[in-house]
């Protein structure tokens, strides 16, 4: 094929290369037309750049690095912009980095990028003795990337380029009943995940644990999601139970702050952490059998808890596992507190509620129903006959509207209304007009329950819809169910002879808050006034703790100001042996915070009683 070609002049033919262009690399190095800049190619993987303010310190870059080149090191100087951001920032060891860009591909915020800078020059100081050399070498090789080279971007993942990120941004929501169907029934309208759906959703988790800090009780979120992704709901439940003995309740109605913190949600949709918890809880038939939970060895100490709400139940669970004898006193006929009487069935079916509560009670907790402390049994007696007393009675005293006509029949408090609904003693609402005042979750529960009874519902809120403290999905679903929202509506007066017939409200002007908070509604002479015909008014504008069952000097001694009981980390007060927890002392009034207070109080009581020995 290739025959040897003998040619005496062959050496001379080399002369022609004298007139050819030199054999050097020309493009992309010098292709200005294509790249518009000189030098190496546009998406070269060089040294990193990091927007330190945008970075949230989640540590995913460090975890994904195949060469373990990245370490998260605290930087006190940075001031992160995002909520829940930490002060840890990646520090890269360029002696290990292999420039594979997996850290850039995973960075949830998009702050970590690569530049086209690649020349690594350092000047070892030869005067330094060999023993001290490592120090200087470290300075040359290890540094915290910042925006130094960001004017020369290389391998970048621009914001919105979701395909090229290695994070799965698309959330799998559980199937729900359409609004038209669900608004006629109190049946649960969100279905639990199927196995495939749950595993698909769980496999979006990066496992960084950024959500843990946001959770009021710091649940082991990455661990239990990882167990679901592995297809093991039982292991998942085991992780949940370490910090939350009410998994199904939280799975259905938790305020899920973890999802706000979820790093996947920065560019896409956050993980449905709450629904995943509901999945693992509802997939285990018998918690106690599955988790092999046993009460601890009896230690002869007795604890009393007042009010069978989430805080007391949690305290009971963890104290019982430590071997304490626990008695819970409840004034109502059923345990559960606000979970039983405040949350409508379509959000939390009663059998799901009782599944969690019965598991806790089955550990051998003595539940005394229909006992009112202060009336049937004075608190002093409890303090005498028990080693420690925990009070978790929650917020029972509703805030009043303080307007004319609020004592007319037909004007109700949100919690009273929900109590009636859950007792199935709600007034006949079919075709009636109901106005709900307030924008919290209770207001949404009242409004949506009324819709299910066939009422026409209007929600009156003094700020904008976006300012409502209720969960956004609650508001969205309420709107889908045909509930009308009036923004900036401030009630002025309720008219009526025998019962409430008409309500007058003013449209307030919203004054922006100079500190960047929610705007302040202001009603003056110029504000337009409107009146609508009504049959019922339900005020759901918040509640305060009711500590009337305590003697007044005791209230004074613990420093109760009518709104909150000041307690320390473990729920201790200034009265020895008396612990408080739950809504009456928490900053946030929700179930998971109450669970946290209950668990901390259990630890506090344990520490307190151990010190008594």
């Amino acid at each position: 094929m290739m025959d040897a070609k003998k040619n005496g002049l062959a050496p001379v033919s080399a002369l022609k290369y004298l007139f050819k262009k030199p054999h050097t690399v020309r493009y992309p190095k010098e292709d200005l037309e294509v790249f518009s800049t000189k030098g190496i190619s546009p998406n070269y993987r060089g040294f990193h750049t990091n927007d330190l303010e945008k970075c949230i310190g989640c540590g995913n870059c460090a975890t994904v690095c195949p060469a373990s080149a990245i370490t998260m090191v605290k930087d006190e100087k940075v001031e992160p912009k995002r909520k829940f951001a930490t002060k840890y920032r990646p520090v890269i060891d360029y002696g290990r980095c292999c420039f594979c860009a997996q850290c850039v591909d995973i960075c949830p915020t998009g702050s970590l990028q690569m530049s086209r800078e690649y020349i690594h020059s350092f000047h070892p100081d030869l005067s330094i003795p060999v023993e001290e050399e490592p120090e200087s070498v470290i300075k040359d090789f290890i540094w915290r990337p910042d925006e130094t080279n960001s004017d020369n971007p290389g391998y970048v993942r621009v914001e919105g380029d979701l395909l090229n990120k290695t994070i799965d941004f698309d959330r799998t929501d559980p199937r729900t009943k359409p609004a038209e169907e669900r608004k006629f029934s109190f049946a649960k309208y969100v279905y639990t995940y199927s196995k495939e759906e749950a595993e698909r959703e769980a496999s979006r988790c990066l496992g960084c644990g950024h959500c843990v800090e946001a959770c009021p009780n710091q649940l082991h979120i990455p661990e239990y999601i990882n167990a679901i992704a592995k297809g093991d709901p039982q292991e998942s439940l085991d992780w949940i139970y370490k910090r939350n003995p009410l998994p199904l309740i939280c799975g259905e109605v938790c305020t899920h702050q973890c999802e706000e913190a979820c790093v996947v949600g920065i560019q896409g949709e956050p993980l449905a952490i709450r629904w995943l918890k509901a999945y693992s809880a509802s997939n285990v038939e018998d918690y106690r059998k599955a988790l092999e939970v046993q009460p601890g060895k009896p230690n002869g100490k007795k604890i009393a808890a007042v009010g069978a709400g989430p805080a007391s139940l949690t305290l009971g669970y963890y104290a019982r596992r430590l071997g304490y004898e626990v008695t819970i006193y409840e004034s109502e006929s059923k345990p559960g507190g606000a979970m039983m009487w405040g949350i409508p069935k379509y959000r939390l079916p009663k059998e799901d509620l009782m599944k969690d509560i019965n598991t806790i009670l089955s550990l051998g907790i003595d539940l005394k129903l229909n006992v009112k402390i202060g009336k049937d049994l004075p608190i002093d007696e409890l303090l005498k006959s028990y080693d420690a007393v925990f009070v978790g009675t929650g917020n029972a005293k509703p805030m009043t509207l303080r307007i004319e006509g609020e004592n007319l029949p037909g004007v109700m408090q949100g919690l009273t209304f929900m109590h009636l609904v859950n007792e199935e003693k709600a007034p006949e609402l079919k075709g009636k007009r109901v106005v709900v005042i307030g924008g919290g979750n209770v207001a949404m529960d009242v409004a949506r329950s009324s819709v299910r009874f066939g009422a026409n519902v209007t929600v009156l809120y003094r700020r904008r819809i976006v300012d409502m403290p209720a969960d956004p999905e609650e508001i969205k679903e309420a709107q889908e169910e045909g509930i009308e929202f009036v923004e900036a509506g401030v009630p002025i007066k309720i008219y009526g002879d025998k019962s409430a017939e008409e309500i007058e409200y003013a449209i307030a002007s919203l004054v922006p808050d100079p500190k960047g908070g929610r705007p302040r509604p202001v009603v003056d002479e110029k504000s337009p006034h409107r009146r609508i015909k009504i049959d019922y008014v339900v005020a759901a504008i918040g509640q305060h703790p009711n500590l009337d069952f305590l003697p007044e000097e005791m209230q004074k001694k613990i420093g109760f100001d009518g709104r909150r009981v000041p307690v320390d980390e473990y729920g201790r007060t200034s009265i020895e042996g008396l612990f408080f927890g739950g809504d009456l002392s928490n900053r946030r009034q929700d179930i998971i915070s109450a669970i946290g207070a209950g668990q901390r109080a259990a630890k506090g009581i344990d520490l307190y009683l151990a010190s008594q020995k």
Partner: protein
Amino acid sequence: MELRPLNVSNKNKYKTYELFIGPNHPGISGNFSYVLDMEGHKVANVTPDPGLLHRGFEKLMERRLWTQNLALIPRICVPEPDVNEVAYCMGVEHLANIEVPKRAQYIRVMVLELARMGAFLFAFGGLGGSTGLYTMPNWAFGDRDYILDLFEWLTGGRVYHIYQYPGGVKNDIPNGWLDKLSDLLDYFESRLPEYDRLLFKNPIIQRRAKGVGYLPAEEAIENGITGPNLRASGVKWDIRKAQPYLVYDELDFDIPITGEGDAFARVLQRRLEFEESIKILRQCVKQIPDGPHRVKIPNPFQFRVPAGAYYSKVESSKGEFGYYIVSNGDIRPYRIYVRGPSYSVGLFYAKKAMIDMRIEDVPVWIHTMDICPPDFDR
């Protein structure tokens, strides 16, 4: 400290002497050495001495996530890293049941063929270098830099591209890249006659390479020798044709056969296949469809490959490059075995083939077999 077993012929101290070839010898490719026992200018016995480069890749992979391995595997074959990435990704995709978009498959073919051309240029340069014709390596490595430029533009990396990802490729083709590729192919076509004049039609090269290291077809098959080395012995076997993967069945190309089985035939075989690669690339430029360049897979920490085992293989410039992947359904591989094409040639067949070879033919044999030592040290 004597780590090597003593050679049999070494006992006869008066007849043979020991000669190292490698690890930093210009006649050897990479950090690897043969310990030759010489009887005069003839090889009496040969002991391959690997382990001077990387070690323990397969074990390392068991401790890393499926996608983290993508930064590690290109290092198993330095001159042609992309075959590792593609073979690994194809295996993972098969086990995880991931459908790769057509565009990604075309991009993969283009990357593979460009890498093949780059590796062939290395082989041409290798023959020149080992015979003292240093113009050839200068030309070949200079031209290979144009291929690396294209890689750098496409992937962001020059040598280790780390460009493949289960489900597709990491970046789409940049604007203007295909035009540049066409220009480069034109350039290579104009260069080939010059290579011919310099290397293949060179009477000295022909004298040095023809008839050296004859490899009969049966022996090649027996020893697991694949790729251009096998085809140079006259066996028409190419995985791209025999068991087509990616989109090779949509492309029109030939498998040239030389058949003489000697060192010169092996280099000539590569020279002929170089033209076929140009042909394949031209078709890819024309046929590449629009569409997504990757499909999403779960994030690296949750990417679980269903339990199973699969052997995925691609035709590299040196022969069959395969990955035997075993998964137990976890986020990390259970076991990965890498079948490199040089393993059978450089480590086992060398012990047989080099006996009685003259010392000056040893580098020619090594380079025409295109031995790539990282294969052994995986």
